[in-house]
């Protein structure tokens, strides 16, 4: 193969031609577990997504995209404090359970981490909840608008997920397990109970 356009023909130039420079290697990263690697990848995907959404349009004179090509993707998943505090959530869940006669109720932040729960174990809540959050997002995209709640009738019981704002642009999902689908009036009442979370007013 003929030399590359910017290569030299001398032996001494071989290293230069090769493009290899004697640079010291970077320090090895600390030993990580596979879980650490996955956490790193998740954070980086969100970080790159956040940077892209925050980046201003390029102003360089050289040809290039002039944007704003805002990023597709879900909102950043960093956990945020959710307005009403732990005690507030306990009170809220108790009221929701009393209103709906749900056998369990739990709330997750937008990254699927448990905020509060009653009547269900943490692992079960997070596992089920994260899938319902995904289902909610798929429904949003299917109908091209954000939904307020979804119900899944599983026969012996129903799952209802409500989405609410938690202030500062973050959201939460409240999930109820009940013997049957909630009547419209009850759903509306639950939505009303969730309003204080948006404004951070603890009961």
């Amino acid at each position, binding site marked *: *193969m003929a030399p*590359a356009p910017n290569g030299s023909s001398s032996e001494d130039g071989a290293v230069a031609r090769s493009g290899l420079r004697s640079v010291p290697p970077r320090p090895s990263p600390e030993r990580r577990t596979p879980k650490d690697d*996955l956490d790193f990848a998740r954070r*980086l*995907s969100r970080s790159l997504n956040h940077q892209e959404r925050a980046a201003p349009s390029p102003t360089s004179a050289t040809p290039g*995209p002039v944007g704003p090509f*805002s990023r*597709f993707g879900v909102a950043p998943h960093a956990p945020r404090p959710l307005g009403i505090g732990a005690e507030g959530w306990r009170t809220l869940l108790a009221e929701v359970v009393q209103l709906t006669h749900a056998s369990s109720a739990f709330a997750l932040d937008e990254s*699927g981490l448990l905020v509060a729960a009653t009547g269900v174990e943490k692992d079960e809540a997070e596992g089920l909840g994260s899938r319902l959050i995904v289902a909610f997002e798929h429904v949003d*995209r299917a109908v091209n608008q954000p939904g307020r709640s979804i119900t899944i009738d599983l026969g012996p019981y129903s799952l209802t997920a409500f989405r609410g704002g938690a202030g500062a642009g973050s959201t939460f999902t409240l999930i109820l397990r009940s013997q049957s689908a909630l009547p419209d009036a009850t759903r509306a009442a639950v939505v009303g109970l969730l309003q204080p979370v948006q404004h951070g007013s603890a009961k």
Partner: protein
Amino acid sequence: MTQRIAVVSQKGGVGKTTVALNLAVSFAERGRKVLLGDLDPQGAVGLALAKSDTALAGVTEVLTGRAPLEQALTPTKLAGLTLLPRGRLDPADVPSYEQALFAPDVLASMTRALEPRFDVILFDTPAGLGMATRAALTCVDWALVVTQAETLALRSMGQVLRAIEHVRQQQNPRLKVLGFLPTFVELKKDASRAVMDELWTGFAGVLDTMIPRADVFSLASQRGVPLSFLGGPPTPEARRFDQLAAELETQLMTGEAHGARTERQLL
């Protein structure tokens, strides 16, 4: 404004070339003028089209000065699609090829020369994060990350994202992640679904479109044609690439993210 996209992955065999080829076809069928550039020393695009390893001139000829860029382009029977193949490369010269591609401004100058003619420039890259992939990331606007819906691919995601972050910080601040495209998806299998669950819940930027594992891909490779060129009714898999093109086009051409659409008034 020409959109320049690099199709990348850390692992091999995830379907990069299949994605690059069929996505290029879908964009062209949607009326875009598309260039599909094959930067893979393996010449995977040519192989996918059942071409002999030495059939087509391309990037190699440009890098070695044996042909001008114009003569390295191959028109196709799809009006809007042009190929820039790898060219006639002796496997013994692969290291030199990658070094030449990675040299400052080499690929960028080729891209600049091609931009006025195309709406979309898609680069297929080799697996991994070597010089050819880095060269592509340095001169494109978008990285489309192809990831197989299996555990090892998931575990290596951090590597490709780190490379993208590094190029973005050091060399190409315009570089953005266009999205993560899952391939070989089998939702009825626990392992594949578990990976998909992790992608959907843990990662930002996972595309709605996913490419299932399907025998039709082997058939298309055997025939040396893109999916939509197979005889008979359009396959569901070919329609997936139409869906992918539509999904990406929305981001590329309108600047609206799925999750960030603002309400509009019709009247």
